[in-house]
């Protein structure tokens, strides 16, 4: 497993990193996704820009408005051991990502920017309605998760942008969240992964619902049909079941040696139901 030769730089500031990224280069952080691709020669780069030494991209802080900001270089493990674990779905999802070694090295920003269509965090960020912060030489912008993931390994990041931070909405007592995943046994990636955030109104009905689904198609997506069916319902088993079967509505469902499309479709419904049930249990419990 030997990659083709490539250039390498390790800038000390974000501005320097931004100057060094260009056509043919690729930003690297924890290296848990990109390095295997390079070693298998499924990807090739002229130059790796290693942002591991760039200050200010690590760590988790609470913003004044209650939101939580997660630095792009935060590892999965750091995130799990941070106050972000108060989000039930992250508490569910993070331990299911790969193995201990990957969770110790792999970064949240790297995973998001890589945008593997079967990785877990995209579904979580969609359900949380997270914002992704990107910097370019001309400044900073925020991108909503729903606009960020555009296809398999394709995001809204421009060639000259570096992902710096992820912002999660502040916690609220009337919301519950959960992540449920059917693992592809060999890789541990999702055959289906469903993140659910549900808000129960004062009258007991479902006031808000956001469902993020990964592994099913070529990009993680919001299951808007499920959300619509759920909102306004009483959150009963029957209502959840009726909503969950809409999990793949309007989507092209993948088929591979691990799961045919029919199975994936059925599992999307099962896991959507299970995720919604899990989210509601966290409010009610």
């Amino acid at each position, binding site marked *: 497993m030997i990659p083709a030769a490539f250039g390498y730089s390790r800038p000390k500031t974000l501005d320097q990193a931004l100057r060094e990224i260009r056509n043919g280069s690729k930003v690297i952080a924890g290296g848990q996704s990109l390095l295997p691709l390079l070693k298998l020669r499924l990807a090739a780069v002229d130059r790796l820009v290693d942002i591991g030494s760039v200050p200010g991209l690590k760590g988790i802080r609470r913003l004044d408005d209650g939101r939580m900001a997660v630095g792009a270089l935060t590892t999965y493990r750091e995130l799990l051991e941070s106050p972000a674990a108060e989000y039930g779905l992250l508490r569910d999802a993070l331990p299911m990502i790969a193995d201990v070694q990957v969770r110790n090295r792999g970064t949240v920003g790297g995973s998001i920017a890589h945008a593997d269509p079967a990785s877990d965090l995209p579904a979580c960020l969609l359900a949380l309605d997270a914002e992704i912060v990107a910097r370019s030489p001309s400044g900073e912008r925020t991108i909503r998760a729903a606009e960020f993931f555009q296809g398999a390994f394709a995001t809204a990041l421009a060639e000259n942008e570096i992902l710096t931070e992820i912002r999660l909405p502040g916690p609220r007592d009337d919301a519950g969240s959960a992540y449920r995943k059917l693992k592809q*046994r*060999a890789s541990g990636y999702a055959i289906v992964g469903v993140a659910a955030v549900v808000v129960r109104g004062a009258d007991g009905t479902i006031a808000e619902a956001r469902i993020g689904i990964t592994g099913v198609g070529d990009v993680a997506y919001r299951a808007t049909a499920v959300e619509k069916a759920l909102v306004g319902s009483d959150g009963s088993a029957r209502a959840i079941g009726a909503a969950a079967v809409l999990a793949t509505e309007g989507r092209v469902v993948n088929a591979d*040696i*691990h799961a045919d499309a029919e*199975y994936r479709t059925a599992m999307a419904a099962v896991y959507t139901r299970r995720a919604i049930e899990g989210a509601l249990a966290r409010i009610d419990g």
Partner: protein
Amino acid sequence: MATQVLGAPIKRREDPRFITGEGHYLDDIKLPGMTSAAVLRSPYAHARIRSIDTTAAKAMPGVVAVWTGEDTKDINPLPCAWPAGGVDNNINTPRILAIDTVRWTGEGVALVVAESAEQARDAIDAIVVDYEPLPVVVDAEAALKKGAPQLHENAPNNVVMRWTVGKEKETDAAIKSAEVVVRQRIVNQRLIPNPIETRGALARWDPGTDEYTIWMTSQAPHVMRLLIAAFVLGVPEHKIRCISPDVGGAFGSKIYLYTDMVFTAWASKQLGGRPVKFVESRSENYLATTHGRDHITDFEIAGTRDGTITGLRVKTIANLGAYLSTVAPGIPTTLYARLLGGPYVTPAIWCEITGVYTNTGMVDAYRGAGRPEATYLLERAIDLFAREIGLDGAAVRRKNFIPPDQFPYRNTSGLGANRSGIELSIDSGNYTPTMDKALTIAGYYEIGKAKDEARRRGKYLGIGISSYIEACGIAPSKWFGLPGEGWGAGLWESANVRVHLTGKVVVTTGSQSHGQGHETTMAQIVAAELGVPFDDVLVEHSDTAGTPFGYGTYGSRSATVGGVAARNAARKIIEKSRRLAAHMLEASVDDIEFADGKFSVQGSPDKAKTIQEVALAASVGYDLPAGMEPFLDETAYYDPPNLSWPFGTHVAIVEVDEETGEVDLTRYIAVDDVGKKINPLIVDGQIHGGIVQGVGQALWESAVYSDDGQLVSGSMMDYALPRASWLPGFELDETITPSTDNPLGVKGVGETGTIASTAAVANAVVDALAPLGIRHLDLPLTAPRVWHAIQSAKGGQA
């Protein structure tokens, strides 16, 4: 002393170095001036090579040499050492590099040697090959059909061999007249062995002596030397030294001769003696190291309504890949078809084997080798038969077990008889108590309650039994040595024991350890015999220069064959020492007793010499009995009269998620009878590992080729190796029926877990799904496969 060491659960002395990263594996070896080799592999499963342009590669930085099939065509193809089943004029084996045609994805097309592994790898990409793709066939049954793509001119219809065993007429009659006949097609899917250390070789030709030293990840360095010398390079055997350093797992895949063992040696000579190293990448291991299993079988089992089995007819198509690996034809014949009797009295058995060439990687022995396939078939057949007649599977097994008073037992269909009329029998056994023990631990007869409880949770719970025998301790020569059916060479083992002046003992063995713990168990055997401390015994193996010839480690044979050789060599030491002790004690040899490391004169226990004192006298040598050679140094060769036949019953309990089809193995009970145990801790470890590999086949593992011959499951991202967290703690128990065919009373254990567990888990899943009317599912029982079965069963009911 003796009783304490033998049979003690001593921790493996080799483990600290493995656990702390201080082992020495092939890739740890670095020699001065060493070069690295890389192989350009065919991206096509079947293609004509129109041209190869190596110009650009040769000009790459660090490139020392680039060779193609044209350059290596004077090197013989690798031999097929076990042309069992009547393979005759249609043997096709791999060449160092393909000439004109490639026949499987991954076949070597060009070889690059460079100053570094990185440079060699880069240069591979600069070689330009013009291929003309040819039609591809990957499925063995399809390969036999009219009009299928043909792989080899000398093998019409892609047939390697058609071979039969058993009693055809009797079996036909049994099936024709039977009260009940159950038919089923079952597929035993292809598996990839996946040792954690990949394979490779490092060779150095010495221009001063014209000798080759080849370090290799091999289970059988002596045999490799023999094959390379006699069949491939045509170099005298004594001019080659083969060394297996620490080897990180093999499961059979490192028994065979591979091209890299030859091309590194050949290349080193071409380069004037520069060492050449080749180590597979993980991807190459998936593609190019041998695979296992891959059978398609149609069988019929016949019997009476009250559960007596009367006949078994089996037709198996065995996919052997594009070429024959070293012992490939022996697996579906001798090690599979001849074992189809299992632990049962089946009056009439007939088996037809068709070996087939396809455009896939080579298939050869993989942990259990033929015996897991036979056990899986039989144990599925018993369950299907039991279900057909409405009897309990355990009851049917009990009714058909070979009775304990029938041992040694000869199979009535002559499965154990080879062409020369030599017939092997099962040495010893007592199958019912072992099964009953397993059933009791599992709570087999109370499982109904657990099934009801699981249903309330949306699960189907099932219990599965697998009763097995294994033919292991692969030997004796009189059976395996027969040319044409056996492999035309012996299967004895050897050991040398030397007691040095200081009383320290060095044991060298011709067997080879790649995880089995020989350094511990062989030392236990010899320490027990000689009555010396365990820590005083050093075991050396795996270097043809320092050890007596041996056939290597596979087929669970090192303890039963090699272990007895070590014991016998130690016994020879004792006999010589007894004569010397008599001389030292001025007593008659007949009056010398030996116990606990001490020679004493009968009736005068204070007149004694320890074996260390005797060793000192033998080594110093100034006062020896007339005619006695100095030093204690004895070699023994052991060829047992028979295989050894461990047996047992495994029980699996599973829960199937009705909604997702996911199978959860919740309990696993293994009661094995492996005879006497040299080290129970190592035995348990072997059983644990074996079970996991068999469970892997039942639930997760599968080598998948696309129709155009690409290995789709070619990485750990796509080939699901079992993880510890997916498995319950195993519940192990034992019965002990010593082997009567070797003086240690031991039977093999390295493969039993794998042989038993696949069927136990498969039977449990089918039992779980029985309420839905499902009677059989092929492996692996992945969630989608089980889910689809549940869906169609429910659809059928609706």
